[in-house]
């Protein structure tokens, strides 16, 4: 009678995939998006490697002759290096004997002896470098890697900061409405009524004179993010207005979630894909802006190398036929920016399939 009740095997509970896993699944099917993701990942790995000194550690060492040829152009003539070499040789030639008029002449011998005791290692400067050398004989390839570290770091951190500012202000304006909204809209109108380039330059002028924006690459990160948050603010505000009246937010309120928790615990995860796409878009824009600002001398300090400072040197080099620095900086930037733009497009498609 009492047969053993065997529980029929329940179908395994299938968790419904969330926004991010769905987006990841869609992104994986997008060949262009995956290739760009890999390229971007390589650049970021390069940035990290160079930051921790794993690669391009001695970019600042003068290893080659001035304007050393790239190894694939090893045979071609290098007039600049020869003239520099001639200058060096002239400097090393024995000086004209002035001992009869020179009051220091009696001590020459003593100095020479002392000088001989100090070991001077003369580095042999090579004629060719893998991708050529710059004016001081530094390896252009390593310079480009170090330069991408600075450029990408500036782009990423400025975009992160701008997204943070834009999201916070957008959330405040959209969620609270009222006077908070009026105030922030006013600030937004003020910032956008000044042409963007002019706003950046005004901030740059102040940063350069006052020094209150910090040292190193901090000023440029601050300049870019403090002027570049407006677009993100506008989008996030619209999203927050849309979401703050949705039922799930009302439900959260009913169970006693605080305003803070509703803004950032409930609404933010639902709109974060918008800020992610914005973040990615702004990285590209800021990398381009950093290059131009550094070129003009308002960007990274002179003792650092970025794609912009490389291009600034390249302008004069091109006239004497040394194209490799221009090519190295221009091409690495073009590859990263193309990959990042394509990745942004794929991200947007993956995160918001309705848009297509």
């Amino acid at each position, binding site marked *: 009678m009492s047969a053993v009740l065997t529980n029929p095997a329940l179908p395994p509970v299938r968790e419904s995939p969330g926004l991010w896993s769905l987006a990841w699944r869609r992104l994986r099917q997008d060949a262009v998006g995956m290739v760009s993701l890999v390229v971007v990942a390589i650049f970021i790995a390069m940035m990290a490697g160079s930051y921790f000194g794993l690669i391009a550690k001695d970019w600042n060492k003068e290893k080659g002759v001035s304007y050393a040829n790239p190894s694939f152009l090893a045979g071609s003539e290098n007039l600049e290096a020869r003239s520099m070499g001639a200058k060096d040789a002239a400097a090393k030639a024995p000086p004209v004997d002035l001992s009869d008029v020179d009051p220091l002449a009696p001590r020459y011998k003593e100095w020479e002896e002392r000088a001989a005791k100090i070991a001077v290692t003369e580095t042999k400067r090579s004629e060719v470098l893998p991708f050529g050398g710059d004016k001081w004989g530094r390896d252009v390839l390593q310079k480009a890697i170090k330069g991408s570290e600075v450029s990408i770091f500036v782009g990423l951190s400025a975009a992160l900061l701008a997204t943070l500012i834009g999201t916070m202000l957008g959330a405040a304006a959209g969620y609270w409405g009222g006077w908070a909204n009026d105030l922030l809209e006013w600030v937004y109108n003020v910032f956008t009524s000044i042409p963007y380039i002019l706003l950046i330059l005004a901030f740059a002028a102040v940063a350069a*004179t006052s020094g*209150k924006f910090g040292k190193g690459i901090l000023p440029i990160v601050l300049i870019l993010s403090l002027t570049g948050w407006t677009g993100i603010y506008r989008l996030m505000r619209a999203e927050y207005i849309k979401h703050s009246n949705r039922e799930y937010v009302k439900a959260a309120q009913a169970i006693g979630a605080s305003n803070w928790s509703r803004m950032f615990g409930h609404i933010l995860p639902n709109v974060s894909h918008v800020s992610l796409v914005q973040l990615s878009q702004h990285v590209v824009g800021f990398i381009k802006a950093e290059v131009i600002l550094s070129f003009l001398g308002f960007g990274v300090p002179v003792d650092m190398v970025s794609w912009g400072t490389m291009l600034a040197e390249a302008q004069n080099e091109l006239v004497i036929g040394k194209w490799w620095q221009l090519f190295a900086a221009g091409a690495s*930037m073009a590859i990263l920016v*193309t990959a990042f733009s394509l990745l942004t497009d794929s991200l947007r498609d993956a995160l918001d399939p309705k848009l297509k």
Partner: protein
Amino acid sequence: MTAYVIRRLWQMIPTIAGVILLIFFLFNWVGGDPAQVLAGKISNPEQIANIRKQLGVDQPYWYQLWVFVQQVFTFDFGRSWSTNEEVSRILLTRVGPTLTIMIPVLIIETSLAVLFAIMVAYVRGSLTDRGIMITCTVAMSVSFLVYIIVFQWLFGFILGWFPVQGWSESFWKNLTTYAPLPIMLAVFVGLAPQLRLYRSFFLDEINQDYVRTARAKGLSEKKVMLKHVLRNALIPILTNIGISLPGIFVGSFLLEVFFSIPGLGREIITAVNRSDFPVIKAVTVYLAVITMIINLLVDVMYKYVDPRVSFK
């Protein structure tokens, strides 16, 4: 209509006040003490105090703000800190060269972009379309700097078609000799993003019902595209031109720096380099005002482009 314009002008007042406050906050408060910079390395406290007095930065903030407001409304920003030229004179003389470059750029760029965009949109999805779009994406990823350096070197230095840089007193000589290369560069660089954008505007229109109706009526493709699609797509295009219009006063400062064009853009760069605050402040405030007025004009123009728009 008049009521609308008056209300818009009225709404500009808080924004202009905000711009004045922002600029004041930046330059007079964050900017710190410009006297230290201007006095240079050989300075003694007496000299710095003197300069501070001359610039008026020894006064309390509320008084400095009042002076600044007066400057804005009397168009008198005093003299440049570095060249002692009157700021208003600097602005008036530098606008000409910038517009000599930027107005042709705007006209050529917009007409070419609209023309190409409608052609590309017409063959949407084809290999040509995809090829052009990929070319645009790649072209956009190369820095403007690289284009300028290479073009200047190639067309000015190697081929010698244009002067490498320079500017003259005569408008015609400028327009025919010195301006073509910068204009060509700006058009070349600006074309790719605009083409992409305008193509998407045309694509939005091409799939609309009224286009199908026009085709069903038996209109020729030329008529459908040029009369129906183009006219409707002009509305977002107009907005885009309106957004970029204020920029023509700043010009492409990079072009002006590279080609030694004595325009506003180069003046701003020089001013930033020399911490010449009066020049930057004046340019920023007035360009903000110009931007607001242009935005209003664009909004009014909608009425004539799109009769459905009504002013509320």
